[in-house]
């Protein structure tokens, strides 16, 4: 029983990191209907910048997270400006290919020797791991750190989206670009802001991931990126609560598969569940079914 509860906690830890990435996917998808395949690689860049921050530049780790977030926010805006904005009115698949191109670029460029190099690096944790025993269940300070940070970030995000002017603009643009423009919303700036916000959260996810699973390399973003996107689809893409719910499910499924079935099957079972859910609920768990318009 204790073992099971510990797995639940491990699953929440993984799920929360996925949630940070999934939120970026879901916001970008909600606003420009684009699967931003490069998002997983922004997560990777965030992990590296954070790692450099607390290992080489001697920053305290909270500051390192903020530096990584700012860096990735700018990176996300640059990517949007160069690779997606010129294709805004092109067929969606073209923008998707551009996204795949950006993803490959980030991976291969970062694996060059003068950048991060192609090999795994072991991360020295910036804070020592402390375990507590609560009723036979072990909880570490890192799990607590992730829990608190992600919840704070979520509250901040909900506040931005629902209580600020830019958040209202985001919701308007995601509803209808042209109508938003007519109402005087600066659509380009709003989209740019969405990319910045999503990328900053991915960066935070990256640093937390590097602290929790202390091994990083330039291709590390592919699988978490894919799983986070899957999580967003699972919950209902375009919906913020959906992304969090989907990510928590993915985290649990993956952890439980590793603990009770086989670590070999972790990816297969996660995606099998996605396919099964989509078959019964084609727009995700929280998604509404859209009626076809002629």
């Amino acid at each position, binding site marked *: 029983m204790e073992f099971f509860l510990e797995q639940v906690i491990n699953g929440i830890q993984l799920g929360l990191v996925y949630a940070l990435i999934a939120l970026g996917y879901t916001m970008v998808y909600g606003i420009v209907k684009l699967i931003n395949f490069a998002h997983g690689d922004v997560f990777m860049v965030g992990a590296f910048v954070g790692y450099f921050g607390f290992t080489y530049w001697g920053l305290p780790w909270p500051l390192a997270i903020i530096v990584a977030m700012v860096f990735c926010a700018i990176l996300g805006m640059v990517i949007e400006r160069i*690779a997606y904005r010129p294709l805004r009115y092109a067929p969606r698949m073209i923008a998707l*290919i*551009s996204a*795949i191109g950006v993803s*490959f670029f980030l991976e291969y460029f970062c694996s060059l*020797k003068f950048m991060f190099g192609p090999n795994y690096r072991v991360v020295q944790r910036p804070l020592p791991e402390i375990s507590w025993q609560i009723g036979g269940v072990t909880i570490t300070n890192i799990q607590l750190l992730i829990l608190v940070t992600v919840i704070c970030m979520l509250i901040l995000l909900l506040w931005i989206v629902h209580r600020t002017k830019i958040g209202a603009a985001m919701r308007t643009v995601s509803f209808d670009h042209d109508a938003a423009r007519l109402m005087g919303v600066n659509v380009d700036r709003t989209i740019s802001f969405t990319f910045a916000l999503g990328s900053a959260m991915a960066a935070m996810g990256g640093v937390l991931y590097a602290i929790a699973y202390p091994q990083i390399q330039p291709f590390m973003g592919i699988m978490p990126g894919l799983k986070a996107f899957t999580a967003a*689809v699972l919950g209902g893409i375009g919906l913020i609560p959906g992304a969090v719910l989907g990510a928590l499910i993915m985290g649990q499924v993956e952890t439980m598969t590793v603990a009770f079935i086989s670590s070999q099957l972790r990816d297969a079972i996660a995606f*099998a569940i996605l396919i099964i859910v*989509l078959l019964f609920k084609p727009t995700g768990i929280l998604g509404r079914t859209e009626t076809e318009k002629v």
Partner: protein
Amino acid sequence: MGSKNKHLISSIAGVIIFYVLVKAAIVTGLLNPYWQRVLDQSMIYVIGALGLSLIFGFTGQFSIGHAAFYGLGAYSAGLTGKMLGTGGIPSFLLALLVGTLFTALVAYLIGKPVLRLQSDYLGIATLGFGVIVKVALDNGNRLIPELGGATGMTGVPQVATFEWVLLFTLLAIIISRNFLHSTYGRVCTSIREDEIATKAVGINPAKYKMLVFVFGCALAGLAGAIYAHRYPFLHPSSFDFLQSFNFLIIVVAGGMGSLTGTVVTAVGWVFLQEGLRFMLGEAFMDWRGVIYALLLIILVLVRRQGLFGNKEIGFLTPQAVLTKGGKQNVTSQS
């Protein structure tokens, strides 16, 4: 109909000239074994990419698990070839048949539920299927030791020569072209353009989507089956979702709805990847991935309709048909 014959004759002449040139280059040593392998690989890619072109480029079904079917074809045909073990032509052809039919069957079984999904949801479901197949191939040796699992599969008789690969590539091109220029093909294009309107004229899109999905995946299976008999080493990572992106890139970069574009880009893409290896030299080898990513971004930015748009050349050009008014009209895929 003079132009039709002209296209056909020039295409046959073109194929013969191509064959003679390649043979001459092999005999004179201009085309060393390495580049022969690249050439064969490029033609195998043409077969697989044609399959995705039919599914995605012409019917608009967003499938990003294409390499999974390529892998299923390779492994099932490879296993058959290895079991038969003779390395003769009949067993080679039997293995190809098994690979193609097995892939078609799996495509039918996965397509049945999954094809109901729309656009991105279909994409992510097929992507998920690709990941599942990769995991299955990685662990296949637990059920059948001959599959080799994560260490890769060896021992498939290497009987696919340049002639065989060329023959099957031509067959795949002809069959795809005839399919697209038939009533079925035109229905597929109309599904891509507007599924609801297609439904409104009394056509059941689900049937056609299924047909083209099974057909396209079977082509990927055939490509994989040939691959297994051409390259002595099969590894699951050759068939993971990153490979699916290769097929996707070929179809979009060539121009959605252009067979010519698919064929030319598939060959070009394989040669580009290998060519960069030589042009860059040892010191800049690491830059290969960066350069092809940049080329990809630049291509979509400057030419978003793809290299060929939806144009076709030569033999692949749609035939002119007589409309009711007696006026000649070209059924183009625009």
